[in-house]
């Protein structure tokens, strides 16, 4: 029997014919996630690496059997949520079996008393949020990929939503999880607010990008739907004064849901689109939400600090418009990436307040010779904030080389200026070469973990630079 047939019949025992595919169209569609480099390659007519099979498990037990089989037959398994990642974390590899998680999308339990929701990780973020909403709750996690990413994807990449300043990143919302290790062992952590039982297993697996385990279920901390919301907008003379205002109100203990400060280029584009004539400066949008009295108080504090720091009050229009069109930016990708020679990507980094302006300036200067660049600052903390760069250019020569050059310039500058190379998109296959510099000796821990848990390198080999 040839290898493919043998593999197929082994998979058949676990999944049945209905939940295995080797159709050419499926192989093509599972060959890429949303890594823009792959889109460029597709546009150039290049054939991307394709998996051998796609399977759709319906339980942790089936995943366990799949991983045991993969070890026995020595083939890679790629955990796949919805393929919305932008770093090449879930792509078809030759010889691999894609493990599509989306049939595991059930709401397992809602514990209203403790405000916890247990869910299978194959559910798409927006569908999970809607299920919570109709019960009066929210997860408070609104990444711009919410329409097209799974909860499992959020966990695997340590994603951040637009309202992370109030609700935290996904890792702050996890109370417990179930996961399958590469040898097929299924582990379930206990659901409690916090514990002191050695290193936290949840944290160990969050952000592991499918290289250490497949997370199959999670209990997430949920919140009541906000009772009230305020829309505040200001323009500042420079990003520096805007950032100072944010630092000050964050350190006062204010936690608005949305905090977004745009640099001059991003501000001009945004405010032009809104029809403002006076578009000079940097736009800051702040949206506190929650209990009405708290929202009132937070708005008062934010307003006082912003005005005192030189912010010009622009009323509520800009932030209201932004909220109404909060995912609109994602649609702009297709007209650009479908055009010959065009390159578009986003780069999200993070640092302490002390380093943030130098980091912004050095990365901007490093990228500018290669592409047009603009940025906004969001995901604010009392200690620092993240920067989200959007880069775009029409390549003169080889587009893939130009793309790689942009990343090299940006990441090198980031590391040099005290930034961390990713705040919420993750590493995937894109940032591997800089991850080692980022983590230093700490990277050794990842390799030891990988070796210990996955000695045959069957689980998503290559992401995080592991198992290559």
């Amino acid at each position, binding site marked *: 029997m040839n290898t493919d047939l043998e593999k197929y019949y082994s998979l058949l025992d676990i999944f049945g014919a209905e939940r295995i595919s080797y159709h050419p169209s499926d192989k093509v569609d*599972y060959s890429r996630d949303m890594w823009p480099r792959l*889109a460029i390659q597709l546009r150039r*007519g290049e054939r991307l690496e394709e998996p051998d099979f796609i399977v759709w498990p319906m339980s942790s037990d089936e995943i366990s059997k799949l991983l045991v089989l993969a070890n026995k037959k020595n083939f890679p398994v790629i955990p796949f949520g919805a393929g919305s990642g932008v770093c090449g974390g879930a792509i078809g590899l030759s010889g691999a079996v894609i493990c599509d998680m989306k049939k595991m999308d059930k709401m397992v339990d809602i514990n209203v008393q403790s405000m916890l929701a247990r869910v299978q990780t194959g559910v*798409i973020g927006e569908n999970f949020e809607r299920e919570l909403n109709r019960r009066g709750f929210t997860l408070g996690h609104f990444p711009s990929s919410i329409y097209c990413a799974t909860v499992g994807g959020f966990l695997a990449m340590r994603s951040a939503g637009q309202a992370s300043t109030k609700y935290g990143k996904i890792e702050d919302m996890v109370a417990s999880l179930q996961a399958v290790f590469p040898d097929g062992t299924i582990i379930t952590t206990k659901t409690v607010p916090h514990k002191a039982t050695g290193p936290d297993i949840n944290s160990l697996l969050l952000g592991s990008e499918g290289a250490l385990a497949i997370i199959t279920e999670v209990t997430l901390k949920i919140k009541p739907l906000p009772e009230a919301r305020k829309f505040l907008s200001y323009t500042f003379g420079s990003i520096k004064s805007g950032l100072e205002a944010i630092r000050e109100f964050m350190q006062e203990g204010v936690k608005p849901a949305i905090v977004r400060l745009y640099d001059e280029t991003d501000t001009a584009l945004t405010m032009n689109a809104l029809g403002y004539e006076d578009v000079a400066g940097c736009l800051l949008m702040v949206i506190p939400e929650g209990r009405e009295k708290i929202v009132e108080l937070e708005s008062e504090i934010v307003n006082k600090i912003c005005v005192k720091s030189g912010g010009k009050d622009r009323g509520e229009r800009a932030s209201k418009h932004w909220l109404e069109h909060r995912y609109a930016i994602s649609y702009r990708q*297709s007209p650009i990436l479908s055009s010959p020679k065009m390159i578009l990507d986003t780069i999200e980094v993070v640092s302490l307040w002390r380093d943030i302006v130098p980091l912004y300036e050095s990365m901007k200067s490093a990228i500018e010779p290669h592409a047009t660049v603009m940025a906004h600052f969001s995901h604010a903390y009392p200690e620092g904030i993240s920067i989200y760069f959007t880069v775009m250019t029409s390549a003169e020569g080889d587009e893939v080389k130009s793309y790689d050059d942009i990343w090299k310039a940006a990441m090198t500058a980031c590391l040099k200026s005290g930034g961390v190379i990713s705040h919420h998109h993750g590493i995937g296959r894109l940032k591997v070469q800089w991850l080692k510099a980022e983590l230093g000796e700490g990277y050794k821990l990842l390799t030891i973990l990988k070796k210990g848990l996955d000695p045959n390198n069957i689980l998503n080999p290559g992401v995080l630079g592991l198992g290559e």
Partner: protein
Amino acid sequence: MLKKFEKEIEYCTYCPKMCKFSCPVGNATARETATPWGRMSILYLAKKGQKNWDRELAALVELCLTCMICREYCEHRNDVAAAMLAARAESISRGIVTKEVESFRAFFSKHDNPMGDDLHAHLQSHLASKYFVKEAQVVYFSGCSAIYQSPQNIADTFKIFEALGIDYVGAYPGKIQCCGAPLRFLGLEKEFVEHAKKVYRQLGRYKVIISGCPSCVYEFKAVYPEFDLKLTPRVYHITEFLWPFFQQGKVQIKRQYPKSVMYHDPCYLGRYLDIYEAPRKIIDEVCREQLIEFSWNRKSSYCCGGGGGLPITYPDVAKTVVQKRLAEFMEKKDAVLATACPSCQRHFSKHSSGIEILDVTNLVAWALEV
């Protein structure tokens, strides 16, 4: 055929799948390739010559309910449903016909409808002869689904007309009682046009056409003209026709329907014809309790799974979709499910038991005690 969708195919291919969460077929199958992004990406490769137009592709483009919810979450307003219909027609023009479509074609051509019955006779057996008003200028076109599966809707409609003193509407007396939409949904464009011409010849003389079937209304209003078959522009869905009578106080309600009603927006009535309020307002008038909304309602209403020929080509997927839609309704105690489309009504009934699924006209008839 696909030429006019080139830009849409490109945009979908390079989109980060923003409509994905909403696609009932994508959700039911959990398959990337079955989402609008997945199907359009394959068409993109076919256009570039990197994928053969084969049976696999033909089967793939059949995986669409044409429900158009994806367009509600597309800033480019890409019409994936229309692209899928064009791709189905393209497959057939290339001689690639799946066995489900082939057998449907033979069946339809034998009966001139998808039900396999003499629908004209069926209609006559359910509707008093007095309602077939000779020389009527205003016609009620029942449509194949209602005649075959929900004749009570038609009987109730005419009783409502009678109660409101509307004596100028006649039941459509023609032999062919199907608008032909099922042919078009399956890509059988040539057969659709031939069929539509026959219907057109009969319907052409009427000044106003009313129907309880949103698909029929849409075909007559928007699709027939695309094939140079211009009927009267005054084509109304029954809820659209009846609501002004309520507004003008001409409807004397004798009793209010006592149970809670949850309303399902049919895709063709809502997203295609933009009629969301008329059925709701009528339900509000005739029911005692406030209407219950699905969490996915109006423009983001979730398809019942009965559209786009999917029950013929992929019955299992269609069943999974309807189960998802019904799940929220099943949580409601003692409620009835109401809709304004006989195809939705039929699809819900087929995949459920022990629940009441009513048409808006059934509720009105109840309230008027007719």
